[in-house]
């Protein structure tokens, strides 16, 4: 066999075997829980059988012989010749580890490894009492007709006259997916045992290349679109329009090919939990929900370690020993739930345990002991702030350092790693009830929405995930709005102090308006981009705010990598390069985060506790002077469209929006006392609402303000389209029933989103 083929076969074998052994572990654990059936034994047998056969064929004799012993045991079990007993599980798991070890060694060194498994093999053999491993028969192949006829062989009659062969169909070279799909229908009655049947393996490098090319295409598309916008040629315009649409679709499709179910990462967890629980003398049930939730593979890679760490933590520190649980009146067996789901272009992952919860006094004590906070600060901290202390570097509450969940270097690394990919971690806990960790991560890292700003005649991109809002100060406001507090510029944003940083100064850019004085010149306009880093807000003053755009993230060259202010670069529509700002790095550079942190701690717990009850609301007019509000969390975007862009599709008003058709709903039509005439303002003010990839535009009157207030709603369900009323900014304001209105306008909206 030539070397190339051998290498290729080994590569396939490794992929196949690692996947198989992960499944093997899972099925074993199912058996342990008593969830297995005859099919389970068949599956595990087949996995080992395949490994043995394949490795033997490519000359991996050691793996083959080890695999053989387990196969014999499993075949007896499968055929019912040997009764299954739970004692076999740990031996078989150990056996699976041995195989993995050999495969890993094969992967890394090309050798099958020098470990001695004779003790393990002995154990496996002793489990099949009275059934010594059979020796190989002498013949390795043969024809049945050369053997004495088997007693039960009703051979098919050889006298049947052969019918003429049907014409050959020469084009079938490979079995492809549609044929497979048809085949599957045929055996629909049988339970599907493998999902890999309809899939093909593609080299990850190939997918990365494809993604890169699509990224380039997106950039080229942006250039074309920008260029044709100035051209008057209708044919060119049409072509550009088509390229635009196709590129968007292509981008989505390619992104989908890179998606992997999060279950791939989770596959290892049952084993980890099982082993840890055994080591620690605990009983833990692992529940996994939403395994099929898709994520970009680069993100899957990035969250693997943080998730593993969190799982280990939950089993080690969260869930109690059966005795402790019993004493607390809880069932012996603790539950650890992993949940993943999509929400608004992000993926949420939750890790819930019903263990002891975070011990607040103990966390405070440890934090003080380690000089992470002062005793005074600790005394006034809200629960939430205390929970977040566990993410500080060098924090560990474990009474003794166990070998399972590390040495207190974990949680801060977990947080940093998740934030590195634009995600966030939040922790909630209740003493005695358990702990919930919520992780939010973006679907993909390659193409992200960003705000383009200009400073010092250079353009910069700010990832939209860090962006909270934009504030523009003009004339009088610009002069008086920015105050100095202990030498640092701040702005009062709805009663809260927002520390400011000037992008020009941080990056040492030339800009006449702001470089010389801390307070801008009289006629200047101040643009503040309100950003969020590490859960805290700050304002970044820039010269100009341009537009939002989907940008393709390009990594920075070696020379620029060490500058923490930049996360990457992108190419703009005009072909010029813009740097992507790293909001976190920039905040640290400007020292705005540390200031906020100090202030938040000294700012008394009162304010912190109130935060939870406050809501950010979008205020607007609908129809006549009705003052309405919706929670900002329901708003995907605010848009203005010239009336001329509104088109009709059937009875439906629509606009073309981001390459899609956005249906418009005149909210006036669904409100009881508003004027019957829909709003005809030009431009049309639209609140875009998105759910599971579908969007709808709510046409409102004038958008007035965004406020952050405690909301006390008086329910008033008698009026259609309105949830209730509340007093906002001292005025009675109606809360719009967004979901109700969308449902009334398009009853299929939520159904279809559910289907997707």
């Amino acid at each position, binding site marked *: *066999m030539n070397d190339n*083929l051998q290498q*290729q*076969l080994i590569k*396939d074998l490794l992929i*196949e075997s690692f996947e198989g052994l992960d499944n093997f572990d899972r099925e074993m654990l199912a058996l342990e829980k008593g969830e297995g059936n005859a099919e389970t034994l068949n599956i595990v*047998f*087949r996995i080992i*059988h*395949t490994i*043995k*056969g*394949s*490795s*033997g*064929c*490519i000359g991996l004799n050691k793996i*083959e012989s080890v695999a053989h012993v387990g*196969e*014999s045991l499993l*075949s007896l079990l499968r055929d019912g010749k040997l009764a299954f007993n739970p004692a076999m599980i740990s031996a078989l798991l150990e056996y699976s580890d041995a195989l993995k070890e050999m495969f890993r060694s094969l992967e890394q060194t090309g050798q099958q490894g020098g470990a001695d498994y004779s003790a393990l093999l002995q154990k496996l053999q002793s489990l099949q009492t009275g059934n010594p491993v*059979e020796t*190989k*028969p002498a*013949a*390795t*192949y*043969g*024809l*049945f*007709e050369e053997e004495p006829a*088997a007693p*039960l*062989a*009703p*051979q*098919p009659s*050889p006298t*049947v006259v*052969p*019918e003429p*062969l*049907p014409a*050959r*169909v020469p084009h*079938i*070279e*490979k*079995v492809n997916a549609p*044929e*497979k799909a*048809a*085949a*599957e229908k*045929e*055996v629909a009655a*049988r339970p599907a*045992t*493998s999902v890999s*049947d309809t899939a093909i393996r593609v080299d990850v490098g190939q997918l990365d290349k494809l993604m890169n090319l699509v990224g380039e295409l997106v950039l080229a598309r942006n250039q074309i679109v920008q260029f044709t916008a100035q051209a008057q040629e209708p044919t060119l315009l049409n072509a550009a329009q088509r390229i635009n649409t196709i590129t968007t679709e292509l981008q989505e499709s390619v992104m989908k090919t890179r998606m992997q179910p999060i279950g791939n990462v989770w596959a290892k967890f049952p084993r980890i939990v099982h082993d840890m629980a055994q080591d620690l003398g605990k009983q833990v049930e692992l529940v996994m929900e939403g395994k099929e939730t898709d994520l970009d593979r680069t993100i899957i890679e990035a969250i693997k370690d943080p998730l593993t760490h969190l799982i280990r933590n939950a089993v080690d520190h969260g869930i109690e020993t059966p005795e402790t649980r019993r004493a607390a009146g809880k069932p012996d067996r603790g539950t650890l739930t992993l949940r993943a789901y999509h929400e608004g272009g992000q993926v949420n992952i939750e890790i819930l345990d019903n263990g002891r919860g975070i011990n607040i006094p103990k966390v405070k004590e440890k934090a003080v002991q380690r000089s992470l906070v002062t005793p005074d600060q600790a005394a006034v901290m809200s629960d939430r702030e205390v929970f977040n202390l566990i993410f500080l570097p060098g924090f560990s509450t474990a009474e003794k350092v166990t070998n399972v969940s590390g040495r207190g270097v974990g949680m801060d690394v977990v947080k940093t790693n998740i934030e590195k990919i634009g995600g966030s971690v939040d922790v909630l806990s209740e003493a005695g009830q358990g702990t919930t960790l919520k992780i939010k991560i973006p679907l993909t890292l390659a193409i992200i929405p960003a705000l383009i700003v200009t400073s010092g005649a250079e353009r910069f991109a700010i990832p939209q995930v860090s962006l909270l809002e934009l504030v523009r100060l003009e004339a009088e406001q610009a002069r008086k709005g920015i105050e100095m507090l202990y030498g640092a510029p701040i702005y009062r944003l709805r009663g809260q102090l927002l520390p400011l940083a000037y992008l020009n100064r941080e990056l040492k850019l030339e800009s006449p308006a702001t470089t010389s004085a801390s307070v801008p010149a009289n006629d200047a306009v101040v643009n503040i981009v309100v950003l969020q880093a590490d859960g805290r807000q700050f304002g970044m003053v820039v010269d100009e705010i341009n537009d939002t755009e989907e940008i393709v993230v390009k990594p920075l060259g070696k020379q620029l990598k060490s500058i923490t202010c930049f996360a990457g670069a992108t190419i703009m529509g005009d072909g010029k390069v813009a740097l992507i700002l790293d909001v976190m790095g920039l905040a640290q550079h400007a020292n705005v985060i540390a200031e906020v942190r100090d202030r938040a701690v000294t700012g008394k717990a009162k304010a912190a506790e109130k935060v939870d009850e406050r809501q950010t609301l979008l205020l607007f007019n609908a129809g006549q002077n009705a003052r309405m509000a919706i929670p900002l969390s329901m708003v995907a975007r605010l848009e203005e469209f010239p009336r001329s862009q509104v088109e009709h599709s059937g009875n439906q008003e629509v606009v073309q929006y981001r390459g899609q058709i956005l249906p418009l709903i005149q909210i006036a039509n669904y409100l009881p006392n508003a004027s019957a005439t829909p709003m005809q303002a030009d431009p049309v003010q639209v609140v875009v609402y998105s759910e599971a990839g579908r969007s709808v535009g709510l046409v409102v009157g004038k958008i007035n303000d965004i406020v952050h207030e405690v909301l006390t709603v008086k329910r008033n369900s008698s009026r259609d389209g309105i949830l209730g009323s509340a007093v906002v900014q001292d005025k009675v304001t109606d809360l719009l029933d967004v979901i109700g209105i969308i449902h009334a306008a398009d009853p299929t909206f939520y159904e279809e989103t559910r289907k997707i």
Partner: protein
Amino acid sequence: MGRTIITVDDAATIRKMVAFTLRGAGHEVLEAQDGVIALNVLQSRAVDLVITDVNMPNMNGIELTRRLRTLPSFHRTPVLLLTTESDPAKKAEGRAAGATGWIVKPFSQEQLLAIVAKLLPG
């Protein structure tokens, strides 16, 4: 003279090894991952030899052999089973289903070529 052979196995390693070996000997080789797929392909296309694994998801090799024997164009086509030594009962079952011969996994390229030569003389 090259013939057309189909190799049916859920393990890609075995499938590729069989295919490579036989292509090297000048045969045309089709691949299928299990009995259902193979049967689907073979409904519309005849081959000179079927080499099938016994233990596969969806439809095993024995069942595939049994079904093939009901197709007019497969009454005489040789069917070679890939078995394991721990499965003597399967061998008998395969024979009953109408298989022509067997080869024990693991096998070498030489062994495979030897039995294929036996099954496809000339």
